[in-house]
């Protein structure tokens, strides 16, 4: 098991000591986290790192998950999509069932704690059954473009909390409760981010049938329009006129129509160009993603409005990142210092060529990016701010 002391050699000096001191201030308080599942990105990824660490430090921290029937999952999934701005039909009957399932879950759960943190959409209505203690809603997605009907329903639920926490100030909504901001973070000791040597990288890339004989451009992200993989292909084609490079698009494909269409277009592009590699990977392919990011020359994250941590993961591996303006990426990538923020396919192509033409910049930006992540996007900083919030809410 990873322990807090293990982070001393990767976190900025002094941070672990501050965490230990903050822990002393909240010792004895009981904290309960509730989320919709134990696996995946966002809440589950963050909690699977933070909860064992906090317990190891002697804090009484529980993590429970909630569930329901198929209709409950369908409605909470549609509601989450609508809160992220997608068009979804939300029938009153379905929303009532979603609330009712949470009422049933509340009877099964032990909700007594000094601080109860509810993550994302699925368990949010549990707040109606709150007892003593402070309740906060932790939102791991961008709710700023929520559909009106979805938010007018959901906002009433959130107004029953004592506070909300968003990943960025621009991800929030007008609320009657205080909104705190805590950036998400990567775990530098996780399988996706821990150090792996060049020999292992070569072995893993060999297994994926990706050669290392030319410069590698990489984008990691779901095959959907939000990640704009087709825009990345177009940027690659502009670069390919001048440089013999390889493009790897690694990610997962959803089973919705849009994802299937995007994947078909990508496969078509790859069919005509052997230097375009479309890698469909399972969500648990952390070691493969780690190796790909380490093997990459330049990492692209041309997302339109998603993909918060992907740039931080690449920068932690010392890679310059060319990022789109959406999804908090411009918060991570310091333009002209750790990479470039671009607004178009042409901009991405221009910056790739600029870096390939000036390889000393690749090393310099990569090193700057790693230090930037060390300061701002490691789980130690996340723990520090979460404990500070705990102090603030309970003292």
């Amino acid at each position, binding site marked *: 098991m990873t322990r807090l002391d293990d982070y001393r050699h990767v976190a*900025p*000096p*002094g*941070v672990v*000591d*501050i965490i230990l*001191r*903050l822990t002393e*201030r909240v010792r004895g308080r009981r904290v309960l986290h509730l989320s919709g599942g134990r696996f995946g990105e966002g809440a589950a990824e963050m909690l699977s790192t933070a909860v064992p660490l906090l317990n190891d430090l002697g804090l009484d921290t529980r993590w429970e998950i909630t569930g329901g029937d198929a209709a409950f999952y369908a409605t909470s999934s549609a509601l989450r999509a609508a809160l992220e701005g997608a068009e979804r039909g939300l029938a009153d009957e379905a929303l009532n069932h979603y609330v009712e399932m949470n009422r049933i879950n509340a009877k099964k759960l032990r909700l007594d704690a000094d601080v109860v943190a509810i993550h994302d959409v699925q368990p949010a209505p549990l707040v109606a059954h709150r007892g003593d203690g402070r309740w906060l809603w932790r939102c791991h997605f961008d709710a700023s473009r929520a559909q009106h009907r979805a938010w007018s329903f959901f906002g009433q639920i959130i107004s029953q909390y004592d506070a909300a926490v*968003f990943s960025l*100030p*621009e991800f*929030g909504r*007008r*609320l009657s409760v*205080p*909104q*705190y*901001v*805590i950036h998400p973070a990567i775990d530098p000791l996780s399988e996706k981010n821990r150090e792996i040597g060049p020999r292992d990288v070569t072995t893993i890339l060999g297994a994926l049938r990706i050669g290392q004989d030319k410069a590698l451009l990489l984008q990691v992200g779901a095959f959907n329009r939000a990640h704009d993989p087709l825009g990345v292909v177009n940027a690659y084609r502009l670069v390919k006129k001048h440089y013999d490079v390889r493009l790897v698009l690694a990610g997962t494909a959803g089973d919705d129509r849009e994802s299937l269409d995007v994947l078909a277009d990508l496969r078509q592009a790859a069919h005509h160009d052997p230097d375009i590699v479309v890698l469909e990977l399972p969500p648990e392919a952390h070691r493969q993603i780690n190796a790909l990011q380490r093997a990459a020359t330049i990492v692209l994250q041309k997302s339109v409005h998603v993909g918060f941590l992907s740039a931080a993961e690449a920068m932690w591996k010392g890679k310059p990142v060319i990022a789109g*303006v*959406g999804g908090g990426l*411009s918060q991570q990538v*310091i*333009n*002209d*210092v*750790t990479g470039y923020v671009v607004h178009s396919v042409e901009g991405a192509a221009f910056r790739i060529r600029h870096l390939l033409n000036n390889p000393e910049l690749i090393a310099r930006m990569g090193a*700057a990016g790693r*230090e*930037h992540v060390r*300061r701002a996007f490691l789980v130690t900083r996340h723990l*520090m*701010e979460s*404990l*500070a*919030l705990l*102090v*603030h809410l309970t003292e």
Partner: protein
Amino acid sequence: MATTTNPFVFIGCVELRQALDWHALDERELMDRLEDVPADSIFYHTHGYFLRHRPLTTAYGNDFARWAAVEVRDQALAERLAVVDPFESRDLESLRQELVTIVHDHLRELTAVPRAEPPGVFHFQQSHIVTVELGPRATTLAEFHDGLAGVDASAIYFHMVEARARLGRPSGDFAEWMRTSLGLAALAERIERIDTFMTSLERVRARVLRLVDQALEAQDG
């Protein structure tokens, strides 16, 4: 070497950010909001810049200047805002007035109000500082030196910035302790004169340490 019964306690801090329901999409909105936002928000976007930004970050001096440069691409306003030294202002209300005046005067020269594209909205925030005691307490100048050398950089921010700007201790905690507890008025004055604007917390630490080193050498000599 002088020993005090009033030891120096190093305090580290964590900045807990709070988003406010105040936003600006163009420079006129920025000016209007600057007039109305809580003083703590002015503090967060000016003095607080030095806690969040490290040498890697392009230095704009404060969040308003950075927004004007990066999101609005109005370099003239960015330059005018960037030179505002929050440490020279008497208090946060004076600082607020200085910022408002700069934006106001800038807008008078323009025929159209420059604006950011929608993702570049300025979101006003404020912060709550949560403090923790760090390291051993110092009762001599030598102990202070050793403590300062190893303490987390947030302690430099707390004692040199937060103490002066928000906690009503205009000399800063280092200088105040040296003057009142160790009787080192000259050293205190030199530390007070350290320019904390447009630099990093690590550089401020190095400058304080250098002055303390010199004072220790003088004591030994």
